[in-house]
């Protein structure tokens, strides 16, 4: 077959004159009516990451009206290719789950139950406990008289569930307070 001198490269693409359907003689009335009455909703898709193992499978979370409606594996994550294991596949249930705690809870000394508290009260109370502990137990010098600036009686455990940003801040905060007992799942 001879090669045409013409460049057969672009078929009727955008910008080329198109024949409107109406000019083809098709009865478009019903279709137009249907389209006009069609209710659409806007959904958002967000790339997120499965919070189980450190494969960190990327996910696509679909959200409608601010509510998560589905979680699927992101096919463009080279590691998973969109796959999710059984636990990852249960992510929607993990997010939308009636077992989750949704308000700060407080258990008073000697109490047999939890009570709901406001965030502001809770934060203030925790800050007070931290300060009491720190002011009471802060060690400026060790037995050999060396400057040590440490607080041994307060600790933090966790968490590998934290984002890098949360870890960075958490570490900064703890060293600022003088905490030496800090540890997380990397050690167990």
């Amino acid at each position, binding site marked *: 077959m001879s090669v045409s001198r013409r460049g057969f490269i672009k078929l009727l693409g955008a910008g080329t004159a198109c024949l409107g359907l109406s000019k*083809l003689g098709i009865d478009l009335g019903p279709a137009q009516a249907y389209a006009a009455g069609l209710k659409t909703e806007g959904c958002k898709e*967000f790339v997120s990451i499965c919070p189980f193992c450190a494969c960190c499978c990327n996910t696509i979370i679909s959200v409608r009206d601010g509510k998560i409606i589905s979680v699927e594996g992101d096919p463009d994550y080279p590691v998973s290719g969109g796959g999710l294991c059984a636990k990852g596949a249960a992510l929607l249930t993990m997010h939308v789950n009636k077992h989750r705690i949704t308000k700060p809870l407080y258990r008073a000394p000697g109490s047999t139950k939890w009570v709901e508290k406001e965030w502001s009260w809770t934060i203030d109370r925790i800050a007070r406990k931290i300060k009491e502990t720190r002011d009471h137990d802060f060690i400026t010098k060790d037995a050999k008289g060396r400057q040590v600036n440490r607080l041994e009686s307060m600790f933090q455990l966790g968490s590998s569930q934290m984002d890098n940003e949360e870890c960075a801040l958490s570490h900064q905060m703890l060293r600022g307070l003088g905490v030496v007992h800090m540890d997380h799942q990397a050690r167990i």
Partner: protein
Amino acid sequence: MTSPSTQPGSPSLRAIETALARAATEVPALAPLLAAFGPLFAARAELRASAPGWSGPAPALDAERFTQGVFVLAQMEHGQGFQDMSAHLAQAAQTLLPVMVQSFPAVAQELNILSEAIASGALPLEDLAAAGFGETVQVPGVGAETLAFAASELVRPFVERQAQDLLALVKDLPWRQALCPVCGNAPDMSVLRRTSDSSEFIQAHGGQRFLRCSCCASEWAYKRVSCPTCGCEDPDGLMVLRAPIRLFERADACTRCNTFILCLDTGEMVDIPDLDVAALTMLPLELQAKAQGYAPLARHPWGDL
């Protein structure tokens, strides 16, 4: 490149017929449209099946350039594009034009004149092919738009068939562009598919996005949550429009550049419909997207209402 599990261009008529029947049942308002275009799609599919593929030696491809975004046809020596199919167009016209005459009564007369011009040789076949590619060609008694529409429908099966062969050349090479890896044209449709790889372990549940070329119907993988027009990946700039009654039909829109592309989510489908039929069935959604101020990335052959 990753190939979709269902190869485009190896369409079974069954897929078209099933899709037409299902669509007509589910959206009765579209019945006249489906009835008009269905036979055209079927006839085109048959033509494509019997069309010659890429002839002669395969173009020499530089894998490095390809992965950098230089599509197959752009790498050819003279850059002519698809091979000339005009020799086959007379026969194609005999098959396709009568179907179109039946389907599109308003342009029947023009199409008949066109048939005659082709049969008599008044319209050289090479000119006919050129008309399919947007060149202005005059045929007395046939409007320019009608001629362009008919001609492009005539060459389309041959283009698609050639593209199948060219796409096969690059199936193992990565292609990350929003334009077609074969001919460089823009996509007018996209689809989310279940893909399977050779691994006998965890596989994707679905949702790999493929764009489909408006010119040659090639499909290629393209990343989700990103706008193929402007590249926006900020989730706040992207929006999926859907009708709650047909959640598998989406218009993936970008609020940054105000474009959209239709998308069929086949992730949990048993029968994956023919994509021409699917796109036609999504016309109402497309109109909604346009009404909301978004422009399509590329237009469908049937244009607008």
